[in-house]
């Protein structure tokens, strides 16, 4: 059973990151496992305002997670990279 579900769509921020930005929502079934997994997958992760916003940085993208619910992934080469990461995160 997966630890979360997600939906994803292309985002259009009022800034130019030169690459793709996507946004979406998580529906988390197991909060503890979800957090453990995200810290496993992204070693460089910081949090703002007691975890209200998690910021993860990788070579392929930056990810921002808001209140364990909404997320944005920026600096992506393509949507496939986002889907691979998210599928891995939620399984």
């Amino acid at each position, binding site marked *: 059973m997966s630890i979360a579900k997600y939906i994803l769509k292309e985002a259009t*921020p*009022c*800034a*130019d*990151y*030169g690459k793709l930005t996507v946004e979406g929502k998580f529906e988390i079934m197991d909060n503890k496992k979800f957090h453990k997994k995200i810290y496993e997958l992204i070693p460089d992760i910081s949090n*703002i*305002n007691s975890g*209200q*916003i998690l*910021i993860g940085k990788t070579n392929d993208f*930056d990810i*921002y997670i*808001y*209140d364990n619910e909404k997320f*944005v992934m*920026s600096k992506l080469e393509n949507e496939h990279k986002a889907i691979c990461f998210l599928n891995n995160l939620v399984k």
Partner: protein
Amino acid sequence: MKKNIIYFDNAATTWPKLDQTKKIVNEYFEECYVSPNRTNKKIDILTSVRESLLKYFDCPPNFDVAIVPSATIGMNVVIASLLKMKKTHIITTNCEHHCVYRPLTELNAKFDIVDYLDSNYNEHPERILDKVDKDTNAIIMNHASNVNGQIFDIKRITCNLKQKNVIFVLDISQSAGSEDISLKKMNVDIAVGSIHKHLYGTPGIGYIIFNKNIELYPIYFGGTGKFSSNLKQPDILPDKLEAGTFNTIGLLSILESLKVVNKQFRENARKYENELVNYFINSCEDISKVKIYGKSLKHRTSVISFNVEDINPNFVVAPLLEKNNILVRAGLHCAPIIHKTMNTYPEGTVRISFSKFNTKEEIDALVKILKKF
């Protein structure tokens, strides 16, 4: 009633609006305000709006006004018209909005961008005239930047422009209702603006105020309520630029706003908003991570751009403020080139902009959050 929101995006559109605006908009639903130039009941809102705008912006006698759906559409009309003229080279600045850059680019215009943040131009704005050559048809520029709030000294440019036979187009979107604007004294040939910012009108109305000796051409066509036997667009200004049903609510709101936002109102609001700008700048003095752009500007509107060091303005600062019911705008603000000059490209900045309805307590709430970074 301001509800539980701290609204700092008045450069996009002011909120709340004036009580008088709210009253007239409500009245629209009660009274039979017919569609201008259509119904047999004659209520000449259009003429009143045109006369009020010409008076408000102190226009020379040979000026007229076209009412369009937004300042952007107004600027599109102007640029498309300029490109139909004999000379087509256009000079603009790095401080403009996409309402200038995108039409110029899409219409394949030949144009030069002058770096107006460079001290060379900042201290000597008239040096833009050095760029004028025999093919130059027009200079298009902002009265005030929508990114850092800088107000430009237009008179110093236009006083030497007439003998060069160059049309001067001014975007007054950010300064209308905030600055005292005399198009006559500023020697402006065409001004484009909207009513929903510091004029406190409703969104959906823009205007082109123009010297009648300059030929403007429509970019969209259709019914004008006049000369209906003719399948071609009537060749009469301003009617030919005004195809389609008018935004009557917007016309009513601007009539009210122009009465209320008079010289005294502007003076008081400007003084108060300047106080808020200084209060915010001073409050951030001891927050080393907050960088304010253009904080030493002497002549400015209430627009301020800032960033928090190493923190993304779009994906972190703005969402965190939103969570606290503080509404701002983050990103490039449809003005990418000024951000390149400010070294804030591609992420942009967080922009706040005050109106007379903001308070120091609201700024305290914002500063309190910025201190947490």
